[in-house]
């Protein structure tokens, strides 16, 4: 039982990271109809910027986290302004390819600036742990879960009550009607990219503070967040958070019971568990757990 709970805790921490990234996917998808493949690149960029702030410029870790989120948000909004704005009205797949192009530019950029070496971000948590009820909680994991909960809550409040959040929801629902009401679609698009990039950067710096440290391959985590987004339903922010947690739990449990249950399926089954789970759920619910069923007319 202790082992099970311990795995669940690890899953929640991992799932929080997925949830942050997946929420970023959904924010962009909902307002612009684009799947942002560059999320992994933005995540890596954010994490490395955080490293620079925290280690090279020696600002406090909390400030570094804030700064890296803000600068990633600026990068996201700038990219939207310079490139994606021109693509409005083009077929969605062309726009997706553009985000893949951005990913391919960001990845070498990151390695060209910071190199391939394994880096350790200065942070107040390190490997400290607290024990309670026979379980060991990593301080970083606790902070990851807590920060994610706070950020997600803040996002939902913003989305529900602020006028910009309302504008985002309206634009997602019907862009033309929104324009007719005087809502600036440009501002909405730029904001969604900024929010998504900031969420990715936060996920990145939280990951980088963990035991894995910071390597250029950190962006791969965003690929595993795709199933999280799909599982929850692509147009549902709540679904993204739910999907992230489910995927995180499933992956951590598969890793925990690898030797006992999954040795027949080869090493590291946990890596493909998100995708298998996604396929299973899509067979039953083609629009994800909380996604809206698309109404199609001839």
């Amino acid at each position, binding site marked *: 039982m202790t082992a099970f709970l311990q795995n669940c805790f690890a899953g929640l921490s991992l799932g929080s990271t997925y949830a942050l990234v997946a929420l970023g996917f959904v924010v962009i998808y909902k307002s612009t109809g684009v799947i942002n493949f560059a999320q992994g690149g933005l995540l890596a960029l954010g994490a490395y910027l955080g490293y620079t702030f925290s280690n090279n410029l020696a600002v406090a870790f909390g400030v570094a986290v804030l700064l890296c989120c803000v600068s990633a948000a600026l990068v996201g909004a700038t990219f939207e302004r310079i490139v994606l704005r021109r693509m409005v009205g083009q077929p969605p797949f062309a726009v997706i390819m553009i985000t893949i192009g951005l990913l*391919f530019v960001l990845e070498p950029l990151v390695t060209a600036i910071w190199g391939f070496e394994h880096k350790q971000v200065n942070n107040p948590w390190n490997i400290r742990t607290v024990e309670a009820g026979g379980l060991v909680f990593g301080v970083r994991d606790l902070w990851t879960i807590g920060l994610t909960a706070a950020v997600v809550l803040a996002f939902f409040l913003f989305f529900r009550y602020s006028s910009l959040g309302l504008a985002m929801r309206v634009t997602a629902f019907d862009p033309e009607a929104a324009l007719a009401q005087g809502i600036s679609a440009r501002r909405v698009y730029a904001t969604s990219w900024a929010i998504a990039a900031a969420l990715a950067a936060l996920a990145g710096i939280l990951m980088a503070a963990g035991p894995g440290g910071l390597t250029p391959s950190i962006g791969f985590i965003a690929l595993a967040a795709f199933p999280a987004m799909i599982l929850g339903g692509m147009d549902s922010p709540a679904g993204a958070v739910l999907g992230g947690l489910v995927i995180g739990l499933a992956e951590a449990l598969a890793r925990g019971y690898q030797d006992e249950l999954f040795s027949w399926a080869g090493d590291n089954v946990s890596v*493909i568990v998100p995708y298998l789970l*996604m396929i299973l759920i899509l067979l039953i619910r083609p629009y994800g757990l909380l996604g809206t069923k698309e109404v199609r007319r001839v």
Partner: protein
Amino acid sequence: MGAHRNVVRGYADELRLFGTPAARAGLVAMVVVFLVLPTVVQDDFWLSVLIYVGITAFGAIGLNLLTGYCGQISLGHAFFIGAGAYVAARIGGELGLPLPVWLLAAAVLGAALGGLVGPFALRLRGHYLAIVTLGLVFIGEHLWRNLTGITGGNSGTPVTAGASLGPVDFGALNLFGEVYSRNQGWFWLVWGLVALVALLAKNLVRTRPGRALQAVRDRDQAAEVIGVRAGRYKIGAFMLSSAIAATAGALFGAYQQFVSPDEWNLLLSIQYIAIVIVGGLGTIFGSVLGAIFVGALPALIDRYSDAIPGVRTGVGSEGFISVFALNQALFGVLIVLFLVFEPRGLAGIWLRVKAYFKAWPFSY
């Protein structure tokens, strides 16, 4: 007085493959280039680049049938290509069966695997399908690493499949007393097969099944209303595209003579998507143009990296960016530039140039 050479007087005229004198001249030029090129360019580096480009064009035609004509987005092309390569390794190499057998076996396995994915294409649309096929790449990678009996696991497997068709061995051509190198033989083999599959695809898309595919792409429910079995065509397109992909994979494996699971990753799938988009969605010719463009670029950079400032060519040498990273970044920049400025791809540019000369001296 005879009609002007470009006048189209009926449906049959419209469908003719090489209807105008210019098109026929183009065909002759292509055949001549195909036959003569390997004897002019004997350099192994350039020949091997052209062979890889040909194999890529082969696979890209398959993806274009699926994505460009049927509108089904697949990021799983790498999975089918990998499967084909292992067929070549086991059936062509280990069992030593001849070229047509392992090529066909790869196609059959590809079609079967595509048929397994097909049902997802029925239930899922657009982005959902893209991500599920993305999952396929990762699940495939896990399989390739763990089915060690077939794939050799992480360390890869040699592919010793022979390339002889009857008495003609493309690996060591000996025609009319003239001896040709392996690369020269493979050039003819691969580009001959590209021509074959391009003709097959072209014939498919200009006849009833092709029209049906395009109807499904444009609006599948409307297609159903006018009597097109959308489900059947979606699965069919998936099977055909995967069969072509697996055949390309078999050729790739047999030419390279060694394959490992690292090669069938997401990057490969994305490269194929990029080829189809850069070349032009929904054009067979565009797939070949795109393959030449995307396939030759890394080779050019690799070859001339010494002359580009700031590039690190070896482990200890100066420069801030490695050849691989530069390649990847340029690839990304190209995709972005292309889509922003020419969303219809290379084929779109080609059609515009053609239309300009057709209408000359009037501008439109």
